């Protein structure tokens, strides 16, 4: 654990909090603080938040419980009693935690320390696996084969995990596939369904209601409580899709 007064003062460029994004901190509850880094969705901001999150988790303050990275924010959970017992400056836990986060944010940013994994996700597109494939193709004046080709030929960036356990919001989709979400959500979307909503694509890890346009399904378990990291992918990861046939899909499921 890093001692507060051992964190070097670095006010030059390349600190976490001086990357051109205005940093604002607010108390979310008695046991959480949110750092807001801006109000846009882009990859530069994502990599800043991912890097700062990893740096904070490697250098926790006394009482840190966990963090939630999102598009433009990082929410930090803590135990107020442990924070108050620490020697961080300030009277209230918000002051102490935000003083620590500010000091950490003003240290030199390591460019190479961000760990992001790459995943190739097999997807069986269309047919019974992608109930809305026809609608997505029609809305964009494309053939179904073109939808598959364009959806499975780019790299996606995972912006955040939200909605339900393991649901990854991914950006980077070919704009010609953008399709608005459904006016009336479906009551049941099968686990593994790959969907499109606006400019984003995502995978439903479990059967839930949902409004995304479903174009296919992966046989992979996106969320499994028996794994050390239950969610297959995490914020900051890079994902691509590989089209597979129904036989291959069934072979996966049989495993």
């Amino acid at each position, binding site marked *: 654990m890093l001692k507060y007064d051992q964190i070097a003062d670095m006010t030059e460029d390349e600190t976490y909090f001086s990357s051109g994004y205005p940093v604002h901190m607010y108390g979310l509850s008695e046991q959480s603080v949110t750092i807001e880094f801006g109000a846009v969705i882009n990859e530069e901001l994502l990599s800043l938040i991912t890097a700062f999150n990893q740096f904070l988790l490697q250098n926790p303050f006394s009482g840190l419980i966990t963090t939630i990275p999102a*598009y433009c924010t990082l929410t930090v959970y803590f135990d107020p009693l442990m924070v108050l017992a620490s020697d961080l400056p300030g009277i209230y836990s918000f002051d102490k935690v935000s003083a620590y986060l500010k000091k950490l944010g003003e240290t030199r940013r390591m460019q190479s320390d961000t760990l992001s994994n790459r995943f190739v996700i097999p997807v069986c597109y269309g047919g019974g696996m992608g109930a809305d494939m026809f609608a997505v193709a029609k809305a964009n004046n494309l053939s179904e084969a073109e939808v598959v080709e364009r959806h499975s030929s780019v790299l996606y960036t995972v912006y955040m995990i939200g909605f*339900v356990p393991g649901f990854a919001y991914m950006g980077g989709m070919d704009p010609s596939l953008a399709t608005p979400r459904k006016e009336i959500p479906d009551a049941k979307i099968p686990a593994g369904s790959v969907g499109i909503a606006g400019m984003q694509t995502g995978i439903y890890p479990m059967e839930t209601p949902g409004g995304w346009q479903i174009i296919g399904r992966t046989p992979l378990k996106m969320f499994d409580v028996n794994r050390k990291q239950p969610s297959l992918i995490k914020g900051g990861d890079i994902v691509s899709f590989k089209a597979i046939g129904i036989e291959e899909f069934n072979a996966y499921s049989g495993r």
Partner: protein
Amino acid sequence: MSMKISIIKPGLLTTVQDMGRYRYLSQAVPISGAMDQLAHRLANKAVGNEDHMATIEFTYDNASFKAETDVLLAYSGDGAFLLYHDQLMPAEKPLFFPAGAIIKLISNPIGVRIYLSVAGGWEVPDIMESKSTYIIAGFGGFEGRALQKGDVLTSSDDINEVSKGILDQLQRRALTYPNWRISRESLLPQKRDTVRVVLANEINWFDATSIISFLTHTYTIDRRSNRMGYHLNGKALLRKVKKELLSTGVTPGIIQVTGSGELVILMADCQTTGGYPRIAHVAAVDLPLCAQLKPGSEIRFSEISRDEAEELYLEREHDLSLITTAISLKYMNI
């Protein structure tokens, strides 16, 4: 020497819960846990348990269970009373029941939920470091689901010195309990329909009259209310800033305002992120009051500062630690 009960009638929604699942929020795994954390903790303290041990959360009455062995139980909360041999069982104190006892839950008009503890805590597997049930994804608690008729719940056989001390004093061939009880009332504010709130980051997105409405009008709990959140009926709030909030971390107690101006209080099973602007968050010390509000109940909001909310939190934690100390001193063999 673990203790067992079997469920005769499960009631509306009966789940195993603890203090919540915090370590996997970044994977969108909700906190879950007891809706009324205060009642959960008091039920645990009354049998000498640590606060984090699992209890059973019952929703309203219409449930019953049988002691399959001798059991040392306690309950707390406003959703029901325990009834044994036509006798109302006192809350917030250890209750020793002999094997074979059949215990019923009968209506308490005040609230929604009670918590049933057992010496040693209810034993279910730890899923992601918690015993809480999250029904939507089907994991945690008892097989990831609500309890059903015939389910047998077992306590951990590893009970601490305090629980042993209580058990030694109470164990007979009939119902026994001590004279003392924990005073839950003294921990709760007198006005149960007013909850204290701290204004949230997007407060200036709302127009001034709407903020005043929020802090002066009475709202009622809508039928669309569950462990994820409560929808409120009442004056809709208008926004002066129309921009969109990009999904960001949220937590139980946060009051969101939907596109139509409706208030939603997020509760234990809420999503980890949300995209509605937030007007306030319920002070942690008053969240247990919300957990006992039923559809149709009235609720008002009064503003306090972030610092006051923390002082109230510390005061509550201090009072709770005194209760633990008092019970430990009474029963530990020193």
